């Protein structure tokens, strides 16, 4: 998977490195600001109220 992505990035090496960094940053941002906030209430870690 990672190898496949790397092979499909266009341009010379330094451009590929920049693209890879941007990709990783984008995925981390997506997780941090969309996926995790959505998933967190569904997980049994942080309920603080009594019923």
């Amino acid at each position, binding site marked *: *998977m*990672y*190898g496949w992505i790397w092979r499909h990035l266009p341009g010379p090496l330094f451009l590929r490195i920049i693209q890879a960094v941007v990709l990783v940053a984008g995925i*981390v941002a997506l*997780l*941090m600001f969309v996926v*995790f906030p959505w*998933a*967190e*209430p569904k997980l*049994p*870690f*942080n*309920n*603080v*109220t*009594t*019923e």
Partner: protein
Amino acid sequence: MPAQGMPRPPRPRPVDPPTEVIPRVEDDYDDEYYDDDEYYDGEDDKPAPPPDSFARKAVRGFGEALITMGLVVLLFVVYEVYVTDLLSAEKQQEATAALDSEWGSNVVTPPPSDPNRQTKLNLIEGKAFAKMYIPVFGNDWKFSVVEGTTDKHLEIGPGHYKDTAQPGEPGNFSIAGHRVGKGAPFNDLDLLQSCNAIVVQTQTQWFVYRVLPMRNEVAGWASDPKSKQPACAGVAPLSTTLGDAYAKTVGQEIVAPTQGEVIAPIPHQVNATVPPDKQARLLTLTTCHPRFSDKQRLIVHAIETKSYPVADGFVPPEMTEG
């Protein structure tokens, strides 16, 4: 691999005497070949294509997926413990700013002369209405308390259980707060000792609550030298001062998440019919327990010992404790 298996069959040959000479020749032949750089280059490239079989791809993909999932889980821990702190800090700041401007702009109605007859606060869900301080946690421990205890409210800061008493009222002023992440206001709640002050400030009044004696201190409280300390003035096991209805109300307890009775006007006595004027003025804090889990709830009960009217430049002496 089948490619490797092919050259093996010739091995039995040495059994045949005349062929004994031949392996030597092969050795020399091989050495010459391996010294040749070009031959090496070809050798490096060639084995690559056949091993990229479907099985190899599948195994590699599976391994990469596992590594990726591990990274995502690690990232989630970072999110939960650090990133939510940053997001909540901003919300808490906004709520505090809104509260400050509200308190600053309104004409402060002087607190009623009889503290028992204070006016009710107008609580709006999601809006901060009071500030909370725990001096033993340090000067920087202060949070604006919002109305409501849904996830959204608790992201902003500690949340007041709707329908429980207001600060200073008879009954049980109950607050929930996160223990891990989201500002973690109640991270150290387990460290509170009996008689530690919890100060709540509204627009017009300061209320000083003190943590009740712990379960193991209740029996020997009267003879405990601690009870003579000035900080413990007004603090005594509730069962001795207010009767058996309060027997289960001690400084700290750990309960199941379903035990909502800890925030009842008289904790653990949901059906008790004690008139409000006979009820103690309690403060109850709830958070998750143990840390990083929601299996149980950590509960801290405190009782109001003092109140002061808000005045310019006045800070309750209890604020410098700790």
